[in-house]
């Protein structure tokens, strides 16, 4: 029912100056997809360089620049903003029965902060040749101070944008819920956005302190302290990306199992637990810099983090019990998220254990660990969300068969690209080195092949969705028979979201709608 298309203003200016959260979200989606392409391309080049044990494509400096571009673009411009800025902005008001975000123009402003931040990061990378890795550890990270300053300025813009988004979400959740919707009636995805926004508000402030130390030349401070400050933010930032991904996975499982969550409160508490623990578990990034006692202490919040994730995972599996399960593409992406998250967390438990962490820290094992979480996990959740809410956002259905055909190589590619990297780490190969002992070549060849399969699958998925914009059948308001207020309005929704103000009955999540 895309009849509402005519209710929207037309023209480029109406998009660029929109105060409609749905249009802001679509602007974000377009920009973020471009960044995923750029960062992914840099990743493929890194993998091609590593096909042979000797230098091949680029020299050491070129290699340092390549993986810096890959990491910075994908972490700062994809992983952290992807789900909140697109699906958060689009769905948060719809899911709580609101007509808009609390601060509509602020939402548009966050998009321009993103564009400005992205431009600065890209200029710093391309023109300035930043080669410090996405971690930008001082002082070697400051070897090209001007371009690093441009990148840090870009990150500051992104941080401000993220802070504004978080404040907008928090205000909207507190002030704009539909009548009858209490905090404990909110869908899991809304809870995940709420938890992650609270973390963002706290962590961004510390990030600002860290940036000030570097940017204002107060960097004479102790490197040890600065490493801690840096990871306090970066660790929380990465987990603020995982909590919304967990929220997405919850929605996918509820919708396609056509069931209530086995335990709603366990799910909500697990999100809060992940968010809270992410604020105190940064220390496991700096194990090798500190003492045994630090390692033991920082292991404790890491345990809480892993436990929270385990509670969520067990609740997801338990939710399938007694369900009416349709194994559609979005659900399979959701389960792929659970799959990679499992191995990401299991390896994280190893990294948080003193002796093993000392072996793996700084090797490819760490690369495998966080790619399981952000590439395998977070990217899968993003794709699941994209397919699940695509009919709602565009008013079109995509081809289920072709979507599955694209999903298969994405899953296989992720497995091939990242699981061999655990073994590279076991073998002791350091990160960020274009050369390596010849015995490790087979593992790199498998991983490179995986990156190509993954890229082919992503291109296929993009083709399926873009094709659906043109040839897809019109989408019903609730094509999946899912619960949730976003399905109680047309696809796409009218500018004011709902024809008449919706009312949420208690325990909304338990009222799965059946067509």
């Amino acid at each position, binding site marked *: 029912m895309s009849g509402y298309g005519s209710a929207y203003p037309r023209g480029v200016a109406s998009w660029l100056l929109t105060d409609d959260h749905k249009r802001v979200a679509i602007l974000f989606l377009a920009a973020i997809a471009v960044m995923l392409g750029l960062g992914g391309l840099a990743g493929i080049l890194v993998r091609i360089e590593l096909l042979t044990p000797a230098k091949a494509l680029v020299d050491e400096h070129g290699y340092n620049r390549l993986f810096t571009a890959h990491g910075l673009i994908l972490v700062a411009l994809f992983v952290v903003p992807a789900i909140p800025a697109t699906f958060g902005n689009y769905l948060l008001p719809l899911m709580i029965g609101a007509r808009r975000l609390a601060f509509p123009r602020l939402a548009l402003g966050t998009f321009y902060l993103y564009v400005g931040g992205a431009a600065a990061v890209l200029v710093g990378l391309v023109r300035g040749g930043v080669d410090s890795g996405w971690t930008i550890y001082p002082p070697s990270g400051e070897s090209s101070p001007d371009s690093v300053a441009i990148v840090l300025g870009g990150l500051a813009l992104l941080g401000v944008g993220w802070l504004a988004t978080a404040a907008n979400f928090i205000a909207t959740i507190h002030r704009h819920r539909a009548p009858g919707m209490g905090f404990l009636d909110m869908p899991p995805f809304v809870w995940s956005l709420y938890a992650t926004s609270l973390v963002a508000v706290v962590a961004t402030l510390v990030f600002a302190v860290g940036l000030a130390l570097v940017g204002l030349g107060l960097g004479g401070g102790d490197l040890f302290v600065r490493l801690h400050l840096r990871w306090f933010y970066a660790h929380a930032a990465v987990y603020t990306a995982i909590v919304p991904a967990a929220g997405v996975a919850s929605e996918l499982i509820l919708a396609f199992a056509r069931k209530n969550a086995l335990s709603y409160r366990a799910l909500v508490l697990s999100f809060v637990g992940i968010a809270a623990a992410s604020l105190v578990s940064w220390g496991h990034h700096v194990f090798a810099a500190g003492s045994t006692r630090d390692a033991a202490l920082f292991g404790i919040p890491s345990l809480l983090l892993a436990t929270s994730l385990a509670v969520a995972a067990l609740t997801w599996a338990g939710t399938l019990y007694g369900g009416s399960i349709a194994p559609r593409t979005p659900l399979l992406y959701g389960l792929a998220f659970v799959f990679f998250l499992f191995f990401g967390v299991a390896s994280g438990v*190893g990294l948080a254990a003193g002796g093993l962490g000392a072996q793996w820290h700084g090797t490819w094992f760490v690369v495998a660990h966080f790619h399981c979480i952000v590439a395998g996990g977070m990217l899968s959740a993003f794709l699941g969300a994209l397919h699940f809410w695509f009919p709602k956002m565009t008013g079109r259905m995509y081809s289920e068969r072709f979507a599955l055909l694209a999903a298969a190589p994405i899953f296989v590619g992720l497995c091939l690209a990242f699981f061999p990297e655990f073994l590279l780490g076991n073998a002791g190969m350091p990160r960020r080195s274009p050369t390596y002992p010849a015995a490790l070549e087979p593992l790199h060849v498998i991983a490179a092949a995986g990156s190509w399969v993954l890229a082919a699958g992503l291109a296929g998925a993009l083709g399926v969705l873009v094709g659906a914009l043109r040839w897809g059948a019109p989408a019903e308001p609730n094509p999946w028979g899912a619960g949730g207020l976003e399905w109680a309005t047309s696809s796409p929704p009218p500018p004011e979201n709902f024809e008449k103000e919706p009312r949420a009955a208690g325990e909304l999540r338990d009222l799965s709608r059946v067509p």
Partner: protein
Amino acid sequence: VDDIVSRLLWLPGGASPGARAVDGLHAALFLATLVAAALFFGAIAALMLRYRREGEDEPARRIVAPLALEVAFAAAPLAALVAFWGLGVSRSAAVLGAPADAIDVTVVGRQWTWSFSYADGRSTDFRLVVPARRPVRLLVTSRDVLHGFAVPAFRVQQDALPGRTATTWFEADRAGTYPIFCTELCGTGHSSMRGEVLALAPADYARWLEGRLPPPAPELDLARQGERVMVTQGCARCHSSTGERGQGPTFLGLYGKMVKLERGPDVLCDEGYITESMMDPTVKVVQGFTPSMPSYQGKISAGETVAIIEYIKSLRGAGVPESIVPGGARP
């Protein structure tokens, strides 16, 4: 069984008691992960099959977990994780606390060299010489930026921070050589900041302390000895023998050539210039290169200096000698 697990996991042969302790923990985590994954994803697969949707109009169902199940969902993983954490802490104490009879070696990282200082005042670059079967405590620090000192064979890794000294330790089971890597990005030369631990049998170590080891193998001619010194002293990390550009100029065809310098008039590359460049490398820097090479004054013997010069002379042009070192003296 240990060997099979090691091969399966691509672990370098564990060559120290610490490595065995860590590998036990590794095997425990690996097996626990596999068992948990089989149970968890097996359950998901079974539920997907058992509760597969039969018709589009199948109604939604409502099932709420009892409190006991919710508690179990939290308690079971927490118990497993706490148990593993306890095991990890007890093992890491074994790994990180050096025994009292350990000998001390100071490890200094700088762009892009590992230097080792021994109690008797001696020092080496790139190559850490230790006795086998004797605990060695490493005092790790950096002179410039963050570095990471790692010896995979011993499962040892310690970040090197400027202005701080951290300790770690290992004990080599057997005489042999074990690769050293830098595991923290430290600039352009990060990937060439490698070295090796040379663990010597106690008798050999005593001879090394007296300055008589490692003796060049007698069957080698001078140029081949030079190639071996080049590898063991780390020259090959920056200077290729193949014409490939590294951190420093290639040795191929260098001898007898006129060399353009960063500063000052051109210089003929002869025995004198090569020796000066080893002992005082920042004075006459070849055009296009940075003065990042450490001085080898006092670190290599006169005989080794001559051997290196002879090796460079052997690379004058055609007839590059076949490599004697596994993998060749190439970066």
